[in-house]
């Protein structure tokens, strides 16, 4: 059993090392500008369907979101313009390095969070999701101390009990 665990750990370390070497560089300001400009345009597009107005209104419910999206669009144009100017004058752009290992680890954490949510929702018992969350994170951290498992699960049940019986939350 110990050998198998050691082998598994070694394999995980090897995969981690390989992923850690893979990096992706993105021109962060340019990407932000383009993404949010598209977002503002989409909001402009869906506004007539999503915001019902009466023709009698002097200032209707679309005025404020329209103002916001116009401002967002203006900021995006400035951000993109600044980066394009840098590109034209051969100045270094603002880059962001995305590490693949970090993103994979974040995805695993997200799966644990999603698992906790769906288990709680499907069973209707928050404590089931809570226990899954504890076990998921302890395995994620590759924790080998049995006492940590006991403490964490006990705390999870304790928090559920406190919310359920002291604060009267029905879950």
């Amino acid at each position, binding site marked *: 059993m110990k050998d198998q665990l050691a082998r598994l750990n070694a394999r995980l370390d090897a995969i981690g090392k390989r992923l850690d070497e893979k990096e992706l560089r993105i021109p962060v*300001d340019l990407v932000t500008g383009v993404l949010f400009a598209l977002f503002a345009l989409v909001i402009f597009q869906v506004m007539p369907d999503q915001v019902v*107005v009466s023709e009698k209104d002097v200032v209707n*419910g679309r005025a404020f979101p329209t103002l916001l999206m116009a401002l967002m669009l203006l900021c995006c144009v400035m*951000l993109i313009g600044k980066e394009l100017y840098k590109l034209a004058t051969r100045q270094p752009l603002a880059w962001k390095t995305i590490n693949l290992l970090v993103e994979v680890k974040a995805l695993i*954490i997200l799966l644990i*969070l999603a698992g906790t*949510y769906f288990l*709680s929702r499907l069973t209707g018992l928050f404590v089931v999701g809570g226990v899954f969350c504890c076990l998921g994170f302890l395995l994620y951290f590759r924790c080998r101390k049995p006492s*940590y498992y006991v403490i964490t699960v006990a705390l999870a049940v304790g928090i559920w009990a406190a919310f359920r019986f002291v604060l009267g939350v029905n879950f």
Partner: protein
Amino acid sequence: MLQHIVPASGLLFTLENILWINIGVFIGSVFAAIPGLSVILCVILFLPVTYSMTAIPGMMFLLGIYCAGGYGGSVSAILINTPGTPHAAATMLDGHPLSEQGRTKAALKIALYASTFGGIFSALMLLFLGPQVAKVAAQLGTAEYFMVCVFGLTIIAGVSGKSMIKGLISACLGLLISCVGSDPMTSYDRFTFGIPRLYLGLDLAICLIGLFALVEILAKAEKKPGSLNLDARKIKDDGVITKDEYKRLVRPTIISSIIGVMVGIIPGTGASEASWFSYNTAKNMSKHREEFGHGSVEGIAAAESANNAVTGATLIPLLTLGIPGDGTVAIMLSALMINGLNPGLSLFTTQGDIMYAIMLGLILVNLFMLLQGKFLTSLFAKVVSIPQEILTPIIVIFCFAGAFSVNENYFDVGVALIFGILAWVLRKLELPPVPILLGLVLGSMTETNFRRALLISNGSPGIFFSSAYCIIFLILIIAAVGTIVRGKVLERRAAAKKED
């Protein structure tokens, strides 16, 4: 003011309030002592707990967390050279070297005394200045209020990230999210995408759990395994501070408290700016400059008194104008509003007793922080070493339980999760989250005043430049933007010079 003090004291000095203050102070100290856990995260996690409380115990609990967080951050800064909260970074410069000289307890005591002084000084300033600022706020109409909101949002968007443009994009996003749900003036639904549950809008606490708490869980992926757990040294010294040292502490503590209050009143600035500014001032004014960075007692006192002096000052614009001084008090605004307490002069006149009870309570919070710090420091020191393996799932369970308990609905937990993912993407794009928070908090107030002002003027935007207050705020907005842009340009030039 005096007519409110006696009834306010009656409302404040109850067993329930004192209990909640102490629970808040304890939780705040523990959270802030653990590197990676922030005061804002703590306030978000425990905000749902206050939903079932009345205004005074709820605010006392949150203020306990907020103030004790100012001191708690210094514990890990002194013990393990890692600030528990960003504003304790200046404390670390002298706190840890003093601890290495075998004077850990003395360093912690100086931090505690200075924090308490700063906190009480700030609370007194709130008590005296708050009602006066509220009187000015009473003269503001809808157009002026809109300008105040724009001023608050601009300055916060400008200072909370590397780029002002990105801060503004974040603020716009936060304001747009606040539009989801029923129109505040016509009650027509907006951006609900056919989801009936969205008609009620997105609850602030749920959005914040995702934006600030769940994203920190995802950020564990960025940490190297070795950096997750830290060992704190044991406190072995007797903590004696000499008479001469006490004398040396007086001046930096008083001056830094004044700086802390002045910085705290300005929206968008916060404890970090105050502590660095005060630290530098104390260094320049000291007769023992050579000790700074090597365990100076004055350095610790300056940084700590300043970051706690911010706590009461940030409440001045919050309680009088509804503009939160920083992200943490922005969350407290929702705790106030849930109890029907809307910022402004009316809060000081119609709800005067409650308001004064809260302001007096801030003094009490600092006194209990002193007591807990005196007797529980060894416990706070042990907390620094709680393993992340245990801490992480517990925070997640708190987040989910908190999100669920707001409306007893799993839909909200899903929303919190989606906001967590959104915050992760924003983090990758280097967009600051604090302007989103401010946008969420101020969204309804900004829009309502904007539309009301335009209704009054029959759609003419000239109303926003029609009064003296509007012009003053316009000048302030232009000045703030100019100062921020100038600061960024100078920062960039200095960085370029350094590279050369």
